[in-house]
């Protein structure tokens, strides 16, 4: 009974909030500031031609730098929580599934490279490419071809950190231009491609780690 009252109370509040918010949103006039114009006006100096990529890696590239730090923090926290535990031997799936996964993996790598390259002028980029690569690792794990991970060895740690280190180094180096991440327009395209390439590898490893370090026998 008490529980029902609580549920009814919370849902009523939620509903009231939706109506309040909807009413206020319908009241809204046009905004004073429109960022579409400056985004487009500086696109030629941004080093890329896709506006979202320009915002993500140039105009607001600092957000993206901190966001990679957030991903690394989540992985570190995950490692601190799960600790070292033995990884059970992976169970092999049906041979047909294994063969399919083997066939899919090179295709996924090609797709990832394409996404990375396409990011400069159409939807795509390091995150999408990294996610596809990580998905390939998860696929291989699920069919029993890639065992789970028990502890991050030095090589893996370097790989996980490399993309962020590269990004941080470029951001710091550009202090010579006047401020953090202030790309000289002529070099912006190359630097952004460099950062995105490093991020693709590290993001793939981080995202795969978030899965593979969790994949172990419970209670071990």
């Amino acid at each position: 009974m008490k529980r029902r009252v609580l549920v009814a109370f919370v849902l009523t509040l939620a509903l009231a909030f939706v109506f309040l918010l909807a009413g206020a949103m319908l009241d809204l006039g046009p905004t004073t500031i429109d960022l579409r114009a400056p985004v487009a006006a500086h696109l030629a100096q941004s080093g890329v031609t896709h506006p979202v990529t320009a915002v993500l890696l140039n105009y607001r590239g600092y957000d993206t730098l901190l966001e990679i730090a957030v991903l690394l923090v989540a992985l570190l926290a995950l490692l601190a929580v799960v600790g070292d535990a033995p990884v059970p031997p992976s169970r092999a799936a049906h041979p047909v599934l294994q063969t399919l996964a083997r066939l899919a993996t090179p295709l996924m790598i090609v797709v990832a490279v394409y996404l990375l390259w396409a990011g400069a002028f159409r939807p795509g980029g390091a995150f999408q490419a990294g996610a596809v690569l990580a998905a390939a690792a998860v696929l291989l794990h699920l069919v029993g071809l890639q065992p789970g991970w028990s502890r991050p060895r030095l090589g893996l740690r370097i790989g996980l950190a490399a993309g962020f280190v590269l990004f941080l180094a470029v951001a710091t180096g550009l202090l010579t231009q006047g401020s953090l991440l202030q790309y000289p327009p002529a070099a912006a395209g190359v630097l952004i491609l460099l950062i995105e390439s490093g991020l693709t590898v590290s993001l793939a490893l981080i995202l795969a780690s978030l899965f593979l370090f969790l994949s172990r026998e419970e209670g071990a």
Partner: protein
Amino acid sequence: MSTGFVFALAGAVLFSLGVAGVVLIGHLLRRILAFNLMGSGAFLVLVGLAQRQDVADPVPQAMVLTGIVVAVAATALALALVRKLHALTGQLGLPGDVDE
């Protein structure tokens, strides 16, 4: 009513549902899903409201991409904690908090 507006309204509904879910649901896995619903709601409002004249605005789109990555990171950490708690206690709910 423009498409952007419909997205923003849907976002408001999802956000409220998500918050209600996080408050009301004891099962931790479902609570994580509720949190994700809440996040998606905020993202929809961010993109939808800015595009209420149905002209794309790249700035909130890039912000949402950043937000999604942050949400993925938070979800992964939450799942790791839930699995650890399940391994230690066999429960998928939070035990009571005691000072003894």
